[in-house]
C-alpha cells in the first residue's frame, strides 16, 4: 500500500504542495484531480522520489522514499507526464535497458521484455525507434516501461493526455485490468475518467487536499444531486408555482418546457413531485432524478471567490 504523509514542497516563497496526506490500499484506483498548477505533478514527483520533499514523506509498500529510496523505487512503476522516453532508441532496446536496471538478466530479461511488448500491444513497432512513433504509441512505450517489473504501486501522471478516444479506451481498459492486484494512483483533469476507472478521488487545489472521497459521494455534494427534472409536453402556466410550493422543494429553475426542482429533502422530493404530476394529470415527456455532476463539485471545490483553497476533511 501507499501512505503519503504530510507532504510539503516549497519553491522559494511559493507553496506548491501544502500538507498533502492520503493512503491508498491494494485494489484501489485513486484519481488525483485538480486544475493545472494545483500541485498534482509535484506530489507525484515526490512520491516517486524524483523531487525531495521540503517535509513529509511517502511510504511505498513499507519503504520510506526518503530513507530507503532505491528500495521504494523498486516497488513503483511511474509514468511521468508527457511520457518521456529516449527517442533515439528502438522500443525493444529501450525496454531491454529498463529490464536490466530492474534487475532482470539473461533469459528472464528477454522473457520480461517479450511479455511486456505483448501486453502493451507493441509487437508491430518493437524495432522502430521511439522518435518515429505516434504519440499514442510513445505513451504505450512509457506505460510498458512502468509495468515491466510488475510493480506493486503504479503511479501515472495524466496517462491519457493527448490520446484519441480509442487509445484512451485501451489505456483505461489496461488500468482496470490491473486494478485488483495493485495500488494505482493516476492524475487527470478529465472528470469522465474518474468515473470510468477510479474507485476514489482526491481533489487538490492550491497545493492542498480539498476532498478525498468516492466519485459517488463527491457527486452527492453537488447542488444538483437529488434534484428532479421534468419535461413538460404541454405548457402549464402554474407549474412553477405548484412545484415551488412542495414542502420538500427548495427552488425551481425553468427553461422552456424543462423544470428542475432543487431538493430541500432529497428522500421525499421525487415522491412529492411524482404525486403532484400524477394528481394533476400533467402531460409530461419525462421525469428523472438528477445525479449531480462531478464538474460542479470540482468547480466548487477548486474555485472560490477569494481564489484561495478551502481545506476540508475527508467525507
Amino acid at each position, binding site marked *: 500500500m501507499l501512505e503519503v504523509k504530510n507532504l510539503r514542497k516549497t519553491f522559494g516563497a511559493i507553496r506548491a504542495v501544502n500538507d498533502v496526506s492520503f493512503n491508498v490500499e491494494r485494489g484501489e484506483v485513486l484519481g488525483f484531480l485538480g486544475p493545472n498548477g494545483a500541485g498534482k505533478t509535484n506530489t507525484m*514527483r515526490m512520491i516517486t522520489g524524483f*523531487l525531495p520533499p521540503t517535509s513529509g514523506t511517502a511510504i511505498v509498500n513499507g519503504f520510506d522514499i526518503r530513507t530507503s529510496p532505491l528500495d521504494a523505487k523498486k516497488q513503483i512503476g511511474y509514468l511521468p507526464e508527457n511520457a*518521456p522516453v529516449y*527517442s533515439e532508441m528502438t522500443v525493444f532496446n529501450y525496454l531491454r*535497458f*529498463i529490464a536490466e536496471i530492474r534487475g532482470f538478466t539473461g533469459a528472464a530479461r528477454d522473457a520480461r521484455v517479450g511479455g511486456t511488448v505483448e501486453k502493451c500491444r507493441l509487437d508491430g513497432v518493437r524495432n522502430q525507434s521511439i522518435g518515429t512513433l505516434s504519440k499514442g504509441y510513445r505513451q504505450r512505450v512509457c506505460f510498458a516501461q512502468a509495468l515491466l517489473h510488475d510493480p506493486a504501486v503504479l503511479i501515472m501522471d495524466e496517462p491519457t493526455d493527448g490520446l484519441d478516444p480509442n487509445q484512451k479506451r485501451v489505456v483505461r481498459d489496461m488500468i482496470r485490468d490491473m486494478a485488483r492486484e495493485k495500488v494505482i494512483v493516476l492524475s487527470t483533469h478529465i472528470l469522465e475518467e474518474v468515473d470510468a476507472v477510479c474507485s476514489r478521488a482526491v481533489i487538490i487545489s492550491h497545493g492542498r487536499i480539498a476532498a478525498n472521497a468516492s466519485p459517488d459521494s463527491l457527486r452527492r455534494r453537488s447542488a444538483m444531486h437529488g434534484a428532479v427534472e421534468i419535461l413538460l409536453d404541454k405548457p402549464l402556466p402554474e407549474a412553477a408555482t405548484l412545484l415551488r410550493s412542495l414542502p420538500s422543494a427548495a427552488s425551481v429553475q425553468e427553461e422552456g418546457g424543462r423544470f428542475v426542482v432543487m431538493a430541500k429533502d432529497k428522500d421525499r422530493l421525487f415522491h412529492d413531485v411524482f404525486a403532484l404530476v400524477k394528481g394533476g394529470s400533467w402531460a409530461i415527456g419525462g421525469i428523472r432524478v438528477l445525479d449531480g455532476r462531478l464538474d460542479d463539485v470540482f468547480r466548487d471545490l477548486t474555485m472560490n471567490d477569494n481564489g484561495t483553497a478551502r481545506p476540508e476533511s475527508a467525507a
Partner: protein
Amino acid sequence: MDAVRNTKAIFKRELASYFESPVAYVFLVVFLVLVQFLTFFIGNYYEMNQADPRGFFFWHPWLFLILVPAASMRLWSEERRTGTIETLLTLPVSLFQALLGKFLAAWVFIGLAVLLTFPIVLATAYLGAPDKGVIVGGYLGSLLLAGTCLSVGMFTSALTRNQVISFVLSVVICLFLLLAGWPPITDMFVKWAPRLVELVASFSFMSHYFSMQRGVIDLRDLAYFASAMIFMLAATHQVIENRKAA
C-alpha cells in the same frame, strides 16, 4: 552488486546512443581528419624529420577543446529538455550510478576516437624509432586530458537544458584551463602578477599534459587529473540534485 549492474546498464545505453544517431560517426570522422590535418599540414610532422610523436600529441588539447564539449553537451541537457531525466531518476538507480555510467560511456567513446589515431603512431614507428615511453605517456595523458575536459563538459551540461549554452560554457572553461598554464600566455602575465599567475597556472591542464608527453608518468600528474575529474563529477552531482526539475 546492484550498483555495478545499474552503472553498467546506463553505460551500455549511453554508449549505444552515440551510435544510434549519426553523432558518433560525424564525431569520429571529424576528429580523425582534424588530427591528421593538424599533425601533418600545420605541424609539418614529416618535414621535422624526427620520429617524435610529441608533434602529434601536441594537437590533442586543441581538438578536445572543441570536440569533447560537442560529445558531452547532450549528456544531461538532453535528458532535461526531453524530460527523460524524470524516468531515469525514478528508476531504482542512484544519481551517482547514473552519473558514473554516463561519464564512463562518453569517456570510452572519446577514448575510441583517440585510439583510432594509431596509424599515425604506426607510421612513425615504421619510419623511425620513437620512444615507447613517449607513446604510452602521450596516449595516457591524452586520455586523462579528454576525461578531464569531459567532466567539465558534463558539468556544464547539467547546468542547462540548452545544448548550445552547455557547449559554449564548457569550451570557455576548458580554454581557460588550457591557456592558464600555457607558457606563451603565462609569460605575458608573469611580470606584473607573478604569484597569481603561479596559482592560476597550477590549475591548468597543460603543464601536467606536457610532462606526461615526455614519457614521464608522475603520480602528481595522475593525481591532478583524477582530482580534477572527481571534483567536476561531485559538482555535477550537486547541480543535478539541486535542480532536477528545473
